[in-house]
């Protein structure tokens, strides 16, 4: 289980997270919604070790992980599909997926997970020899998620998986995310697309300028009039 307690994170001189507490139970799909600049990306970067908190703690299955380097955190079973995808642009699709499994040594498991990823995103199989920088935005998004899955994470961090996707693909993407969860992988997802994200979430949090404004089950938040006004376009 992932647990953030009273997390304070600075981005340069900006106080980006001001005492955020949040939990993701094993196998749970938790969504964090919020506007641009609410601190969603900072939150994920802190969990995966790219940023270190100035106050508070991140623990994973009872062990303190805030302050560990990213390469140590991935070995503990947390992998991310980061903001702006950040695929390796001059490596092929296949090589990117292999990089996802860089921290692993079990060849059999890696091959099995490669098949799973190709099953979730068939287009990646078709493009496996293509250089990642030449993929479309949507394909790069799939590759970023596939690469994270290749680390065989127990917890998958996802930053705006719907960003840059055609509307038709967004729905498919959320169905796929739901399937990943159903296979037993816990997911912490941050999204601006609140309606769809809360629709598949077990639980959710609303983040506003670095603070948790609301939390509840996905359904509760979808029904909440504040959330409807601010993030689901009125009604």
């Amino acid at each position: 289980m992932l647990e953030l307690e009273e997390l304070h994170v600075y981005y340069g001189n900006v106080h980006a997270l001001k005492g955020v507490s949040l939990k993701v139970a094993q196998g749970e799909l938790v969504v964090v919604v919020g506007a641009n600049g609410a601190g969603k990306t900072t939150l994920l970067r802190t969990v995966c070790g790219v940023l270190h908190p100035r106050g508070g703690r991140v623990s994973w299955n009872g062990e303190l992980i805030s302050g560990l380097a990213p390469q140590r955190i991935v070995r503990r079973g947390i992998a991310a599909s980061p903001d702006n995808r950040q695929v390796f642009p001059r490596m092929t699709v296949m090589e990117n997926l292999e990089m996802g499994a860089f921290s692993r040594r079990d060849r059999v498991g890696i091959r099995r997970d490669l098949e799973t990823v190709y099953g979730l995103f068939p287009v990646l199989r078709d493009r496996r020899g293509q250089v990642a920088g030449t993929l479309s935005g949507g394909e790069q998004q799939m590759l970023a998620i596939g690469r994270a899955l290749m680390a065989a994470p127990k917890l998958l961090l996802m930053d705006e998986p719907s960003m840059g996707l055609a509307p038709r693909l967004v729905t498919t993407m959320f169905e796929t995310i739901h399937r990943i969860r159903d296979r037993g992988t816990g997911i912490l997802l941050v999204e601006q697309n609140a309606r769809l994200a809360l629709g598949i979430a077990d639980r959710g949090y609303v983040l506003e300028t670095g603070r948790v404004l609301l939390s509840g089950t996905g359904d509760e938040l979808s029904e909440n009039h504040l959330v409807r006004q601010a993030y689901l376009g009125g009604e």
Partner: protein
Amino acid sequence: MSLLLEQLVNGVIIGSVYSLIALGFSLIFSILEVINFAHGSILVMGTLIGLVVLQRTNFWVGLLIAALASGLLGALVEKAAIYPLRLRRAPLGAQFISTIGAGMMIDIAALVIFGPKTRPFPPSLPATQFALGPVRGSVVELAILGVSLGLMALLQVLVNRTRFGKAIRATVQNPRAAAMFGVDVDTVNTLTFALGSALAAVAGMLMGVYYNMADLGTGFLAGMKGFVAAVFGGIGSIPGAVLGGLALGVAEDIGATWLSSYRDAVAFIILIVILLVRPQGILGHPERQKV
């Protein structure tokens, strides 16, 4: 005709050595975005150490020790002169100047340990000459070409086929993402620096047997020519470094026919022209293509 052929062969032989030096510059640049101006000094130190070993054993043991010594020295330079600055997010200009400082310290150390005088390289490879069609060659030249091209091929395999090479490429393309998937980026930086430095020492030893001597000045000049070759081919590009070195070697040899006393100036004339005409180098892309 046969003169031109001779020049071409000589150019390729010395050019392959420049390529090795250029590869070190390019490897280090592509991963740290810093021109390592201690490269020539690391080359000299490794070569002088290798020469001492060579005098007591043979050429090949000397070559190996030179590579190891420079590799270690390179790792030390990275850890002492670059890593602390990167940790504090120092601008690249400061890191670059730091390498100049490290180079000066190595030069002074070499001066204290080995003295200022030019050291002869004892004949350590058979001086046998042979003719291959119209081209005459020697075992020394064959050894130089073989070692250079062999190492280049090995480097290609290392970068494209091994786990370490994959880590290098991932770090070059996106260091943050590389770390997020388990690459220890600090270690990759240090080892890449060591690898580039070891290649420089090999080049220094090859130049030693070619010219039958080694001293601080020729080592420094060799470092500068490697830099020109790297820029010529497109800094950060591996095929560019190889091509740039070979092209520089040939250009020098042909240029020397007309301007014999300005042989060493040819490299710098090329540098100025390339910076004016095609600053990204022969194989470089304007947006800079790396490993």
